[in-house]
């Protein structure tokens, strides 16, 4: 009897240790990411000065005269993310207001999982669709649109991030207490006026957090841009020209054979570090905004 009790207590301790270990191991993922990005970036910056990295305006790692200025890649990344956000915010906001203030529960039940499925579609499929459907379609309307461009991937990413810009915004607006709406109706305001002047401002930090997470997702997206935006580091704001994003560069280099420690191998870690920092900043802002909502109610 006592034997089984001791056994039970010991087993309880062992299982606690097992579960704790599983949780503890996950810390090493972040440690691993930071370690590998930093250590290989430091190696990279021994060969390429960090000043050149941040001030040079050309990125030509495969040319005879190698230049490592990250700006063309950063510009490409932000150009595409900018187009995505420009498409996604108006569309997402309209959908969010419609779903949260107008749509019936039945419509919502069908529509929300459908919109959230946009996130689940494999990005390589989006890439195919962008290159072989969206770009040819746009070429009929936009003059001098090249086969690889930033416009088509930007638009497709705009739809892809709707789960953040529409669905998360709707969640935030739904969280606004009903009594605030009723007060506005009682003063004679219409539904739309209430939605725009009362509900949206009350939910703004959650809505904006959704937008920022969407933008961050567009910045980190890889396959759509690798397939449809071209592989040409190009410091431009013309959305018709081929460009290269930070993620696109990593893919391009990774497709070749990488000798460990070569300058190309090291360069993708430096680009990865820059990408990681940008994503981290965006997510910290979004996280901070979301804790602000919790304070409000």
């Amino acid at each position, binding site marked *: 009897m006592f034997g089984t009790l001791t056994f039970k*207590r010991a*087993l*309880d301790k062992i*299982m*606690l240790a*097992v*579960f704790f270990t*599983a*949780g*503890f*191991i*996950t*810390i090493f*993922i*972040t440690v691993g*990411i930071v*370690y*590998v*990005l930093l250590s290989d970036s430091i190696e990279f910056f021994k060969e390429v000065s960090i000043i050149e990295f941040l001030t040079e305006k050309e990125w030509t790692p495969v040319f005879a005269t190698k230049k490592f200025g990250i700006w063309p890649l950063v510009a490409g990344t932000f150009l595409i993310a900018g187009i995505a956000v420009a498409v996604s915010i108006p*569309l997402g906001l*309209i*959908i969010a*207001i*419609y*779903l949260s203030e107008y749509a019936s529960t039945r419509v919502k039940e069908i529509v929300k999982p*459908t*919109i959230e499925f946009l996130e*689940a*579609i*494999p*990005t*390589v*499929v989006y*890439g195919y*669709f962008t290159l*072989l*459907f969206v770009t040819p379609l746009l070429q009929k309307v936009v003059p001098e649109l090249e086969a690889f461009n930033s416009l088509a991937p930007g638009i497709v990413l705009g*739809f892809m991030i709707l789960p953040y810009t529409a669905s998360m915004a709707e969640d935030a607006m739904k969280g606004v207490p009903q009594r605030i709406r009723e007060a506005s109706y009682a003063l004679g*305001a*219409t*539904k*739309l*006026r209430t939605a725009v002047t009362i509900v949206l401002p009350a939910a703004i930090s959650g809505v904006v957090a959704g937008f920022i*997470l969407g933008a*961050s997702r567009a910045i*980190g997206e890889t*396959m759509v841009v*690798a*397939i449809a935006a071209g592989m040409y580091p190009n410091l431009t704001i013309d959305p018709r020209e081929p460009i290269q994003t930070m*993620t696109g560069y*990593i*893919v391009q280099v*990774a497709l070749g054979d*990488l000798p460990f420690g070569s300058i190309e191998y090291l360069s993708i870690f430096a680009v990865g570090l820059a*990408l*990681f920092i940008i*994503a*981290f900043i965006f*997510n910290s802002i979004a*996280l901070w905004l979301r804790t602000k909502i919790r304070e409000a109610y």
Partner: protein
Amino acid sequence: MISNKKRTDARSDILFPIIGFIALLLAISFMITLIIDILIDGFIKLKDPSFYTSYPSRFPEKAGILSGWVGTLLVMAGAVFWSLLIGIPAGIYLEEYATKRGIIGKIETIIELNINNLAAVPAIIYGLLALGIFIYRFKLGESILTAGLTLSILMLPVIVVNTREAIRRIPRDIREGAYAVGATKWDTVRDHILPYSLGGILTGLIIAASRAIGETAPLVTIGALTFIAFLPPSPFTSEFPFISLDKIWSVLMSPFTVLPIQIFNWVSRPQADFQINAAAAGFVLLLLTVLMNALAYYFRQKVRRKYIW
């Protein structure tokens, strides 16, 4: 003046639902167009049975996805294995065991913050982690093992969040009842928490797997090959115990390709015939994703009906 404003308000209140509905239709028709487009483009290949049983080839009309779907299956099996070993227990720990007190409490907060942050890391960064750590430092090679590990890291945040939510739904009374009759924490977890939350945990696992199955970027960086004209060796033997550890190891260390990588390779080729293959394989991948999401949805509804507290 006032009546004018009122009229505009009234008019826009009628107009907006129409605009909203159009925006919604736009988003949904975008998705439907995508699905129909790849279905039409790939239809010839999709109805050809040899597409599913052939290896990739230099000749587009002979090329198939055999090594792709076998690779996907093996890599996903690995990812699910690691998730069962790390992800789900980590979620259970954070929700059921964590007390947030003392030094251990500080570690718990770090674990929690860390997992929240991982959810927002771009997928390709995990590819760099795998390349720098698993391949070059741990020497695991460009193998099925490395790919499974990488995807399981990608799945981790989704699994932890879903595991925690499933456990959180179980009322405190259940635990108190178990403790009152002398059950230890582990007894309670084994006999009550796990059975009641299993549906929710599995839903999370399926959703995470449905995302991971379409991931391409992190596997490109670890060098998944696209031209694999062979399958990993079979781990089964004709003699007892019918399975050999050495052979399992050689499966794990085997080079591989997966469906998304195969699609990426075919899209990048200039010949239109290869793009038909890309569309067909893309449709297969999309179908898998849809099925997994539908399964998760079904599970979730079933669990909600089964346990009403």
